[in-house]
């Protein structure tokens, strides 16, 4: 509840700001929104259900690939691409969820890492479809494909913002819903949940599917944003960066991942313009942040506010 004024201010800035920004900044802002959505979807697993997934970029990537393959090889229409992207990503999480939902803790970390690596391997090796290492380029531009009357980065930004706001609202509703609370219960004490009568496996599975679905949404947007896909979309680095966004921002909150995603996208792009030693700086930043705010930046702010 305390988040409301903060969220409102940010939202107003997000809506009103871009027309006054240079196209490059609008682009960065778009990226932040896409990753923020992705990070929020991971947070459903990581922060709420307590399932640390290290293969989450997989769904993102698969959805992006679906859009890429359909739009380039098969020249499919806009809605076909979008719907298939989301559907395929969700379907994948449904299937993988069957495999991983009974595993917990580090083992969950590792089994999702493995499934992520397998997906990466697939994107790398299933050359006739994915183009292998070279990836697929030539995804049509959003405005052309969707038949939008406006073009350009600002228009794309607003489309992304719309998707983001809708998804974020859905997610916010989800985590405060009865179902959202069952996820927290599982995170806190699964045994107790079972003895209270929850089929925890089922709840984990459903949360995995939901997380996969929202990741797919962001993957679809990302595909249009970049105009190409490549295996690096689903590799371990992508997944672990995502993981960092969530933990840095504050797992178990929805604002946290947004902050984390924003901070990391911004930092990476800004520092690297000034120094080639940016990984060092970024790493130091992670360490310091975790040191000072082990619960994430957002929770740090919250505790401060609560105590004052």
């Amino acid at each position: 509840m305390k988040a409301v004024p903060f969220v409102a201010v940010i939202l107003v800035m997000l809506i009103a700001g871009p027309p006054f920004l240079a196209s490059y900044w609008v682009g960065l802002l778009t990226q932040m929104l896409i990753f923020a959505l992705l990070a929020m979807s991971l947070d459903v697993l990581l922060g709420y259900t307590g399932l640390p997934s290290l293969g989450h970029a997989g769904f993102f990537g698969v959805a992006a690939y679906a859009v890429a393959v359909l739009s380039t090889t098969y020249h499919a229409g806009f809605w076909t691409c979008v719907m298939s992207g989301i559907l395929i990503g969700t379907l994948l999480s449904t299937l993988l969820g069957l495999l991983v939902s009974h595993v917990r803790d580090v083992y969950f970390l590792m089994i999702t890492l493995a499934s992520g690596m397998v997906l990466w391997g697939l994107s790398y090796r299933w050359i006739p479809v994915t183009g292998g290492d070279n990836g697929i380029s030539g995804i049509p531009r959003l405005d052309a494909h969707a038949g939008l009357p406006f073009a350009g980065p600002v228009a794309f930004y607003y489309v992304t913002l719309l998707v983001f706001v809708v998804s974020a609202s859905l997610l916010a509703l989800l985590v405060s819903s009865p179902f959202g609370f069952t996820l927290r219960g599982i995170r806190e004490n699964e045994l107790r949940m079972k003895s209270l009568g929850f089929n925890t496996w089922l709840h984990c599975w459903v949360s995995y599917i939901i997380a996969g679905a929202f990741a797919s949404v962001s993957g679809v947007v990302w595909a249009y944003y970049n105009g190409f896909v490549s295996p690096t979309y689903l590799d371990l680095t992508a997944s672990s960066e995502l993981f960092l966004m969530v933990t840095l921002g504050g797992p178990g909150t929805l604002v946290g991942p947004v902050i984390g995603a924003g901070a990391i996208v911004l930092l990476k792009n800004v520092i690297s313009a000034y120094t080639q030693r940016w990984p060092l700086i970024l790493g130091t930043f992670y360490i310091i942040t975790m040191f000072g705010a082990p619960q994430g930046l957002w929770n740090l702010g919250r505790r401060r506010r609560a105590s004052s």
Partner: protein
Amino acid sequence: MIYIITQFLNGLFSAALLFLIAGGLTLVFGVMRIVNIAHGSFYMLGVYVAYTVIARTDSLLLGTIAAVLLVAAVGLAVERLFLRRFASRPLPQMMMTMGFALVFRDAAFMIWGGDPFTLPYPALLAGSVETRDIVFPAYRLFVMLVAAVVGLLLWVLNEHTLIGAKLRATVDDPEMAAATGINVALVSGGVFAAGAALAAFGGVMGGPILGGYAGMDLDLLPLAFVVVIIGGMGSLKGALVGSIAVGLIDNFGKALVPELSYFTLFAPMVIVLAIKPTGLYGRG
């Protein structure tokens, strides 16, 4: 037949190397519950330090000792100054080690550049053992032997001293461990340093064959994790069985169905976890 024997030996060598690398990881996880993403960095630092020292002194032994000691010191510092504060809080600890992985990786690039290199063979072991048609490098046999010795050492340490029990107590309940008189800081610092040292040692052992190169830290980390997970996090026996299983399956997999070589590594893990969610010898 020759082919099979060679592949079998290759598999065992991979297993030995994996065991050396994964041993430290499972040690640190088993007693501290830290998923140490920086483990690969320690491995990398070991190789780089050894490389530098060997280049200066021409002594493999000195290089190994320097690598092990220096990396242990780095590990100790990381634990004392950073991880200690978050004892028994796995997520912040893991994120910290991720940060360190990034820092070490870039620092290594800054100091040593990104050129690949290999460590020299010990002169004694440069040749190969040849029996009829089977040619097998002597050094690889040596690594297998070393891994066996290290495994034995760890086992003895764990089973026959109180260190193992104290370590586990520290993980189970650090507060009570402290109230029972265990110097938790000392114990966890020691273990983390030992895990780092083991990684460095593994790196040096693999050095003549795999060498050092930019990106090596994250290259081998998933492998080590797969081994540890198959065996069950924290179990020494698990690490041993896991590395042999992975070593053999991966080698034969690559040889027999090269198309699937991207999957031979992970498939066994997924199968094991699907059946037993805590690995072969792991406890929930």
